[in-house]
């Protein structure tokens, strides 16, 4: 298991500063919850999808759709029955199937869901987890919290391998291979117990390693890598400000 969704590249999204990308995420959330018409939200979602297509390639539009199409169908089918008040758009006999309000709400939810999905997808795809941690640290996340995140990300692949190895070993011991479906408890309890013991045994060792490396001292810490400074940062901040105006202009217009 690879503990990262980042794909290296040279697009403008990759070159955008990590701090600006982190600020872009709450902007996207805010933009889709500002009271607005479905058309505006659909345009916003389309703009963010276009951002993904231009920066990461048109093929990158498919993975989120492949994973989330059942939710999109559920939204389309299950939203109208909850909004049957008002003038009807589609009526069969005396049964109202779709109203203006239902159509507007369905389109709003679809735009919101797709826009937020693509917005977060774009940032996660174009930002390495090292930059994510450095960016969070720049915004004030304590060093110990950043250290926890970094160690967690480094530990995930090893633990995933441990899981597969222990699961395969237990299967061989039980002589089951891939045949049948034993009950959940009988199948997973021995594997979970073994993996948990392996994991917790590593805690004191890691703690001693951290202490021997000086964790807990008060002197200022250095960092092996850092985020860019200077004129490039100014350009990225200006770009973010423009994006903020573009995403939140319905709120500005309303005021």
């Amino acid at each position: 298991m690879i503990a990262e969704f980042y794909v290296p590249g040279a697009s403008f999204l990759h070159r955008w500063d990590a701090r600006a990308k982190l600020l872009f995420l709450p902007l996207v959330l805010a933009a889709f919850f500002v009271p607005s018409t479905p058309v505006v939200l659909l345009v916003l979602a389309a703009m963010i999808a276009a951002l993904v297509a231009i920066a990461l390639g048109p093929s990158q539009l498919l993975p989120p759709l492949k994973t989330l199409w059942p939710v999109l169908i559920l939204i389309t089918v299950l939203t109208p029955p909850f909004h049957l008040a008002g003038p009807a758009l589609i009526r069969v006999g005396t049964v109202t199937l779709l109203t203006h309000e239902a159509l507007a709400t369905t389109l709003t939810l679809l735009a919101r869901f797709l826009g937020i999905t693509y917005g977060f997808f774009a940032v996660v795809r174009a930002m390495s987890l090292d930059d994510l941690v450095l960016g969070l640290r720049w915004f004030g996340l304590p060093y110990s919290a950043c250290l926890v995140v970094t160690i967690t990300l480094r530990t995930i692949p090893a633990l995933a391998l441990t899981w597969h190895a222990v699961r395969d070993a237990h299967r061989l011991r039980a002589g089951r291979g891939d045949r049948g479906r034993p009950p959940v408890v009988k199948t997973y309890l021995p594997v979970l117990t073994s993996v948990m013991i392996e994991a917790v045994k590593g805690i004191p060792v890691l703690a001693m390693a951290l202490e021997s490396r000086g964790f807990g001292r008060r002197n200022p810490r250095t960092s092996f890598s850092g985020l860019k400074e200077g004129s490039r940062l100014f350009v990225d901040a200006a770009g973010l400000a423009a994006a903020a105006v573009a995403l939140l202009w319905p709120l500005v217009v309303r005021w």
Partner: protein
Amino acid sequence: MIDEQPAVSPAFRVASIAILAAVTTVLTRVVQVPLPARGYINLGDVAIVFTAITLGPFSGAISGGLGTALADLLSGPYAFWAPISLFVHGLQGLLIGLICRVRPGNLGLQVLGGVVGMAVMAGGYFLAGIFIEGAGPSLTEVPGNLIQGGVGVVLGILVSAAVLRAYPPLRQWKW
């Protein structure tokens, strides 16, 4: 020294939270248990229940919230659920740990804590889903979340008892 009240050492707390968050992420992302009808559940809740019972409410909250949030971030399409998972599963771990702390080792309290955590988790995702997907689609996810939470409670309590019996130093690591 590491053996004298290790849980108060900042390095120990960082190490325990990081490793158990990694366990939570792996059990959420890697392990898929098929349901009898259709679909899959993950075992992330097992790790949250285990951590809350064995290491206490704060470990349960931080590693549970962080582990599930990272699992969402690493999934790609589900990345926007990360802040919601951080809060919902963090609250789940916190409540389970606080209830179990009243009388450590009491099975009844562990079950009660697990059920309360399960309800908070399913309810939290339902409420968040209302704003993102709408009430209808969000409601369809509640049964799956409850099944996943229930399996997490049962396996979490069993794993906690088994690991404490097999690795006794764990009893002194609560904070």
